[in-house]
């Protein structure tokens, strides 16, 4: 079964000092540049229904992010709403190519997230002892 592993990234935290986060590198096909764009350190987020990318990354991928379906995304704080636009994009991870819905946010203050729907759900994801994430597939 093909697989790819990503070491957790050590990142700063005033609360914990350091915190490790599962981040992956993905490529998304840009409809305007007609080439794959490498997006580094995308948070592998099983708490996210959908994959999300901030506005400037969206602008590298599509001509006009607002041409996608308007969606309001909520998170842990129910009153906070993120405006985003849904686009169907091609993604690849270690040569595995697939299409998924991606929410391109109208804000830059949003992390890059690889969510579950048609994303993480396509893989067997092994979050190994806070050290390593392995994605494998048949």
């Amino acid at each position, binding site marked *: 079964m093909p697989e790819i592993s990503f070491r957790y990234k050590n990142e*700063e*935290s*005033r*609360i914990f000092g350091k*915190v490790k*986060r599962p981040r992956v*590198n993905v490529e998304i096909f840009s409809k305007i540049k007609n080439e794959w*764009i*490498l*997006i*580094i*350190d995308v*948070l592998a*987020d099983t*708490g*996210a*229904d*959908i994959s*999300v*990318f*901030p506005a*400037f*990354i969206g*602008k*590298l991928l599509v001509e006009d992010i607002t041409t996608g379906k308007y969606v309001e*995304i*909520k*998170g*842990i704080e129910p009153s906070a709403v993120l405006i985003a636009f849904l686009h169907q994009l091609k993604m690849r991870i270690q040569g595995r190519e697939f299409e998924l819905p991606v*929410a391109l946010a109208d804000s*830059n*203050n*949003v*992390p*890059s*997230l690889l*969510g579950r729907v048609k994303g993480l759900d396509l893989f067997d994801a092994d979050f190994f002892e806070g050290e390593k994430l392995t994605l494998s597939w048949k």
Partner: protein
Amino acid sequence: MEAKFEYEILVDGKIVWKGLNPEKVFDEIKKKNPEKKVGIAWRTKEDILVCVVF
């Protein structure tokens, strides 16, 4: 007010640019490095990153 995030552009894994508006810079860096892996990352300075999306 200081931004709590920034973008980084990396060439073959090395950071070559940091800032808030990567749109034009990304294309320039990509053109200058046709044979290399050019990527973009979003970074935050937040203490805790909690991302639950519905």
